[in-house]
């Protein structure tokens, strides 16, 4: 099988670029892969596994894409990385791998850059109703900040509209996508290529001070202030230090919060560091704070990295995190965060060995569920489904065109009222129906 793969590529600083690089060896063993990009440069090591092809929106050739069996598009919530990929997905239908359930940041920025706020407002109205459109308009009129636009208005619809199938990594995304359209949806475990396992020494583990760690793009939804409040209320708070790697939305505010909780000097902000340094930091940490509230819904590459380091973590029981087994993570309910975080920290102090074992369970989970080889096979299998969806889609479109033609002379009613005719037309056409194809977890539901 020949796959055209549209994804951000390293060295772009996005987890999806890293995901592609990590998955590529396993994928290339099973299919011919061409990486399509608008980037001027990319990590040359990718070319050991796939041909990298540049395309320009203005003059690419459909002939080139149609030589492959399927186009696969990676969509996330960042317009800088995904706008052009989304545009291509609209031209040549294919499989969409949705890395973020919410794409509203992507489309807000996309339409903003186009100088077309009405486009965004229109899409919000089309997919989420007048209230969503009103909020979008208020945002563009600078009446409300974007964070006040309800997170329920995910605007994932335009990202997958017209696709041949969507692959997602969380139950939440799966449920949401099922409601949207007549395309197949597959749930698969996000892959992670793990370095060799290094067990943590039980003897060294039990000795403080105990290092808490958090990393990535740290916004308010990472609940760091709440974690500091929990830690500050712990009698043995001096048993912990906190290392923050990556970017923080308001470093001053965070440090002031730490001071207010009596944690001055125990919280260190490192910024972004080389990957090897972060790996070392994870390797020497005792407990990761990987909270999310609200969540964008999708599986967490950062959590997989935490598992890779056999590091226990405190997570929020929401979205994908809520599907993780209790023996692999310490869960916190969104409505009762501070006390529950505090309880987990206290529990760590009373039984650090339990948390060390939790870290090992997380590592085992990673190896069992998140293998790139299995994920690559899932993509291949799902590609067959998506390819088969193609004729159904064009048949439906032809039938819809027939009905719309009828609208020219059928008085009254609208296309929706002619659905019965439409269905019989499609069935008469090829015996195919527009039945929704919904798939479950690749490999079986892990919760069963």
């Amino acid at each position, binding site marked *: 099988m020949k796959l055209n793969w549209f994804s951000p590529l390293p060295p772009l600083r996005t987890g999806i670029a890293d995901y592609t690089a990590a998955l590529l060896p396993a994928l290339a063993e099973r299919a011919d892969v061409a990486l399509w990009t608008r980037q001027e440069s990319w990590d040359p090591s990718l070319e050991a596994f796939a041909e990298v092809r540049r395309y320009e929106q203005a003059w690419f050739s*459909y002939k080139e894409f149609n030589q492959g069996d399927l186009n696969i598009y990676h969509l996330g919530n960042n317009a800088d990385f995904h706008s052009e990929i989304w545009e291509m997905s609209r031209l040549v239908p294919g499989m969409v791998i949705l890395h973020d359930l919410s794409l509203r940041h992507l489309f807000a920025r996309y339409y903003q850059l186009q100088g077309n706020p009405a486009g965004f407002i229109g899409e919000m109205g089309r997919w989420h109703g007048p209230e969503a459109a009103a909020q979008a308009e208020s945002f563009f009129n600078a009446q409300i900040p974007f964070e006040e636009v309800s997170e329920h208005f995910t605007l994932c619809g335009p990202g997958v509209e017209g696709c041949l199938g969507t692959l997602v990594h969380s139950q939440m995304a799966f449920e949401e996508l099922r409601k949207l359209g007549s395309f197949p949806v597959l749930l698969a475990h996000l892959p992670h290529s793990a370095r060799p396992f290094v067990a943590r020494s039980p003897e060294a583990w039990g000795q403080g001070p105990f290092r808490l760690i958090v990393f990535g793009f740290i916004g308010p939804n990472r609940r760091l202030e709440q974690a500091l409040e929990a830690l500050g209320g712990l009698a043995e708070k001096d048993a912990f230090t906190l290392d923050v790697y990556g970017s923080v939305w308001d470093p001053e505010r965070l440090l002031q919060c730490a001071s207010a909780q009596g944690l001055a000097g125990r919280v260190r902000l490192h910024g972004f560091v080389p990957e090897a340094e972060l790996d070392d930091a994870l390797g020497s940490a005792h407990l990761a704070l990987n909270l999310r509230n609200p969540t964008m819904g999708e599986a967490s590459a950062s959590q997989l990295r935490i598992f890779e380091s056999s590091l226990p973590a405190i997570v929020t029981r929401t979205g994908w995190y809520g599907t993780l087994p209790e023996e692999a993570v310490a869960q916190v309910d969104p409505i009762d965060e501070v006390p529950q975080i505090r309880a987990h920290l206290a529990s760590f102090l009373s039984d650090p060995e339990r948390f060390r074992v939790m870290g090992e369970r997380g590592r085992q989970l990673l190896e069992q569920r998140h293998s790139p080889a299995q994920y690559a096979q899932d993509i291949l299998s799902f590609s067959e489904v998506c390819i088969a969806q193609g004729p159904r889609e064009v*048949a439906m479109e032809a039938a819809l065109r027939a009905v719309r033609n009828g609208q020219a002379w059928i008085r009254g009613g609208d296309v929706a009222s002619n659905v019965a005719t439409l269905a019989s037309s499609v069935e008469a056409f090829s015996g195919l129906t527009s039945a929704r194809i919904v798939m479950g977890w690749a490999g079986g539901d892990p919760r069963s």
Partner: protein
Amino acid sequence: MRVLLATTQVPFVTGGAENLVQELQAALQRSGHLTDTVALPFKWYPAERILDHMLASRMYDLTESSGHAVDLLVGLKFPAYFIPHPNKVMWIMHQHRSAYDLWAHPQFGDLLTWPKGRMIRNAIHEADCALLPEAHRIFTISKRVAERMRHYCDIEATPLYHPPKMADSFFCGPAGDYLFYPSRLSPLKRQDLVIQALAHTSQPVVVAFAGTPDSSEYEVQLKAMAQEAGVADRVIWLGRLSEEEKLDRYAKSVGVVFPPWDEDYGYITLEAMLSEKPVITCSDSGGTLEFVLDGKTGLVTEPLPESLAGAMDLLWEKRAVAAEWGKAGRARYYGLGITWERVVQSLTAPRGHE
């Protein structure tokens, strides 16, 4: 029987397909059947239009007309052959080749240049596989078309040959000084290969092309090519000929050169055989190879200018051999039993009497 022929018509284009339909209708009528033709207009671009035409084909009801049952529907061309009918027979000229053997052709592939080209190709394939077997018998005009159907759709079909137009009128005359290539000027017909071959001949071979171009640009290209190759003085451009002129040109040729790319059938081969003229064709010319016997009724060469040139030189130099092969070609034609009576009998045979 009341027989309807279901075919497809590209407006303003008339060619071998249209001739076949007329001849078939006449043959059926000679056999006492009441016959008519339904020709659905066809446009293949944008590619989505193909799906519309397929859908439209499925929506026709030709089970009866003016209160009288239509006893038999003969499906001839895509997508008209999708028209449903309880008693349907296929006699297929060709499937939609852009979705099959021409899909990835560097020069002739057009469906894959469309955004949804692959999806539409797959839809055409699914429809052919699902709907062609609705017919209780599937014939094709040649083995080549049947081979493609088996290869791409895993559907078995029986080749059923038919005579070219005016088959009884072809005759043989004394050979003049030209090889004849009567066909529309088209990249698929590879007149350019013949011109390139002329540049490699050692004999003063002359080729007379007869036919109208698919596009004026292509004709200009060919003429420029002949000029550049230094063979313009050995190429005769006859343009469109009347039927009588064509018969005469066949009759007075040394032989016929016909090296198309993967032809479905190849009337020209049969016309040459009826005119007692040998045929030069190529190993990838498709339908022509069902008739031309290499070294007996003509020559089959590699599709390379040098190889074609060698064959042209041979016919040019050895006129007696050419004449002998021509006679053998005519005998072969009659030996194959290619008649309209046989076509009509095969298409109208009752179910279970195949």
